[in-house]
């Protein structure tokens, strides 16, 4: 990418956090706080079957006995789980029958976010599920996907329409009792996306979900379940934004991926939740559990993430390489600026023979931010000839930030090979000077150099998101030099 291109992209975006607006729309909320009745309320709102309510209640009971984890390198005031709303939805949301009936304010909101939903303006080649606070408000290209046999719908709808599929796979990758935040999600998740790609089908277009937090004092708990049946392929991407507010809002999602024999799932995230202001006020607490299960032989799951938002990021998209010859990948860019804190990485669990994994992590820390890579590569005794390669690079911009690398390597098979390399350094002054001398502003120079540093990961993103992500890299580092 040339310098002038980057320059133009950065210039075009101008302002700092451009997604920080609030949509004024009439909302319906559950009362504040969390108890059995709220869980029942959410379930009832979704017209859920009895089994789903039981599932939620079991999760809630379990959650009451759990304590919040403290091992991550993130610091935040104690969260009062009773001082938040667990359900918020635009009042008319349930009545939308087609895209044309959606409240114009919502259409307008998504237009401003760059995600047109109306039939005429839909993104070519990308089907979108739009989740607004606790509900899905629109899903595009449903018919076209139906023709291919692909199910792409809000998970609340899937629970009603495809109960057998949902029951079979929900909680099979991330068990209800997995961890504090995943258990909380299991109790109160309100919406999210369900994808099923049938045997041998190559999903004809990119699928995406756009998550938007709008209401104040509200947590978002979405749940995504993607099942790729034998020999199928799907590429899925998600984007996230939220308004600028002084308060911290909780986002605790669970994503489960299941790849059966010879299937492949590519999952990309551009996470741009509101990060808080330059003094560390406000921002989303992003506590997310994402895990993929390469259940069938020769399957592949690839995670790509660009994490630029959130006050706190706590997420470890992982792969369980259960089937023989399965492949897991994790490509990550995590950028923290001002007072942001990120503790993110992956787990590659090698169970099957000839399983392969690759981890490329690029962490950039600026301002007073703390950025931690935390990753586990575990090779079990049966995983003959397992291979892992990990490269973790950290870049520091400024003397007040921190960059940390915490890899765990555990091998119990003599024919396995695990290789890990990590570097930490500051942004090269000679590179910066070279760019400045050629007329770039300090911020453009940083954007350019950091984009170069991240190139290997950016290349993994689908085209539609790659350009957006490149711009984001520059924007999220604004104010870090000069």
């Amino acid at each position, binding site marked *: 990418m040339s310098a002038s291109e980057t320059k133009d992209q950065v210039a075009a975006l101008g302002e700092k956090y451009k997604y920080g607006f609030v949509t004024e729309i009439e909302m319906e909320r559950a009362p504040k706080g969390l108890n059995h009745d709220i869980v029942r309320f959410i379930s009832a709102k979704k017209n859920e079957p009895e089994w789903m309510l039981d599932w939620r209640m079991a999760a809630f009971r379990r959650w009451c006995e759990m304590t919040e984890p403290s*091992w991550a390198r993130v610091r935040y005031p104690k969260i009062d789980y009773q001082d938040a709303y667990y359900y918020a939805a635009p009042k008319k949301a349930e009545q939308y029958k087609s895209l044309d009936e959606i409240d114009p304010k919502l259409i307008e909101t998504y237009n401003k976010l760059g995600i047109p939903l109306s039939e005429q303006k839909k993104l070519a080649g990308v089907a979108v599920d739009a989740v607004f606070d606790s509900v899905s408000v629109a899903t595009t290209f449903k018919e076209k996907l139906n023709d291919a046999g692909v199910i792409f719908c809000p998970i609340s709808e899937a629970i009603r329409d495809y109960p057998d599929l949902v029951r079979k796979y929900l909680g099979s990758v991330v068990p209800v009792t997995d961890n504090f935040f995943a258990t909380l999600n299991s109790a109160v998740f309100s919406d999210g996306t369900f994808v099923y790609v049938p045997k041998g089908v190559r999903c004809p277009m990119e699928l995406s979900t756009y998550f938007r937090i709008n209401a104040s004092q509200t947590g978002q708990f979405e749940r995504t379940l993607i099942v790729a049946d034998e020999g199928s392929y799907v590429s899925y991407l998600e984007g996230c934004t939220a308004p600028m507010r002084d308060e911290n809002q909780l986002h605790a999602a669970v994503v489960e991926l299941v790849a059966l024999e010879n299937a492949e799932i590519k999952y990309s995230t551009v996470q741009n939740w509101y990060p808080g202001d330059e003094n560390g006020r406000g921002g989303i607490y992003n506590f997310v559990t994402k895990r993929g299960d390469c259940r069938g032989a020769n399957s592949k799951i690839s995670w790509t993430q660009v994490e630029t938002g959130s006050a706190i990021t706590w997420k470890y998209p992982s792969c369980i390489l259960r089937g023989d010859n399965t492949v897991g990948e994790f490509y990550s860019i995590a950028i923290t600026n001002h007072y942001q804190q990120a503790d993110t990485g992956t787990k590659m669990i090698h169970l099957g023979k000839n399983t392969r994994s690759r981890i490329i992590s690029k962490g950039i820390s600026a301002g007073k931010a703390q950025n931690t890579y935390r990753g586990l590569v575990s*090779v079990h*005794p049966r995983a003959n000839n397992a291979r892992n390669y990990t490269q973790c690079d*950290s870049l*520091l*911009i*400024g*003397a*007040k*930030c*921190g*960059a*940390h*690398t*915490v*890899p*765990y*390597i*555990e*091998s*119990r*098979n*003599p*024919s*396995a*090979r*695990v*290789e*890990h*390399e*990590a*570097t*930490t*350094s*500051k942004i090269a002054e000679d590179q910066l000077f070279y760019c400045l001398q050629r007329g770039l502003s300090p911020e453009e120079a940083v954007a350019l150099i950091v984009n170069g540093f991240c190139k290997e990961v950016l290349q993994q993103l689908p085209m539609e998101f790659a350009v957006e992500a490149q711009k984001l890299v520059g924007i999220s580092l604004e104010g870090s030099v000069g």
Partner: protein
Amino acid sequence: MSAALAPIEARRAEALDSFRVRGMPHRRFEHWRYSDLRAVLDAGQVAQAGTARWQISEIPDGVEMFDLSSGGAPEWVVKNLGNIGNRPTMEEASLAFADGGVALRVPRNRRIVEPVRLQISHAGNLRVLIVVEDGATVSLSELHTMDAGLVRNVGVEIALGEAAEFSHVRCAPPAPKSFNVEHIAVEAGRNARYTAHFGNFGSRLSRTELHILLGGEGSEAHLSGVTVLGAELHADVTSHIEHVAGKTLSTQLFKHVAGGRARAVYQGKITVREGANGSDSRQTAKALLMSQRAEADLKPELIIFADDVKCAHGAAVGDLDADSLFYMRSRGIPEREARRLLIHAFLEEAVAVIEDGALRDIVWRDVENALPRAMEAAK
């Protein structure tokens, strides 16, 4: 009790309280996750283990020695004993329960050529204090003799003055039924240099833990080690190097070989504190697994709070290179012999850094003794 001992006794009482409150470390302690000491040993066994024995056959000229079991500790002992490092629980235990040990001091600008040879034997707790004053130089070999069924818990403290140099070789032969814990705390002054090598051949649970504070500008730490394990032996080397001052340098090179049902652990944490500009840290840890039931755990960790730094680590687990093995066999070297040679080659660079030829030979001898067991598959 003499008056001079009072501060030491006070410090020991404090250590006892601290150990009682925190107790034995276990796998829920992040830095003990691969060595669950509490599961195999209880606090009472450590408390009742008594005091281990030490011996130095010949004190080189210019080195001052003080027997910690005797009264009337000199000021340099009172000042330092129990006061170096960050007081982890097992080190507090050794301070509380050891009724003895040895303290060595090398006065300003004395350069001692002959290494001090320290032998440690029998069960029990033990304390070692080494004070190397400004501009002084000395080396120490710390050789453990291990008998069956013993519990040993050693706390070593090393204070290095400005431009002091200290090199340390520690060797612990295999002891399948014993528990061997050692904590080494180092504080390095301006331009001081600590060099250490660890030959670990395993115990039922063996833990060598280092905490090195590079507090003086330009100070350095260079660690290396080999671990060769077979049968059901376990060895854990855990280091934490803190770069506090600017222009500090640390290097680490650890090579582990595990066969049988053995478990080899390396955890290396580097912290670069805010303001430690110009610091440079490099770390390499590699492990070879020789059997289907052996396990290697590596956790190289970088915690960086300064931007003007160069830090890198590499870690790898694998088996012997198939091309090299074939090359050797095609030249007539039988497979077992070829494997042995390649393991040697794998360990070579980590042993080669030991400067003293006699100490290097001791490590190689222990490696030779340990290799046949390490090359065995699990029974």
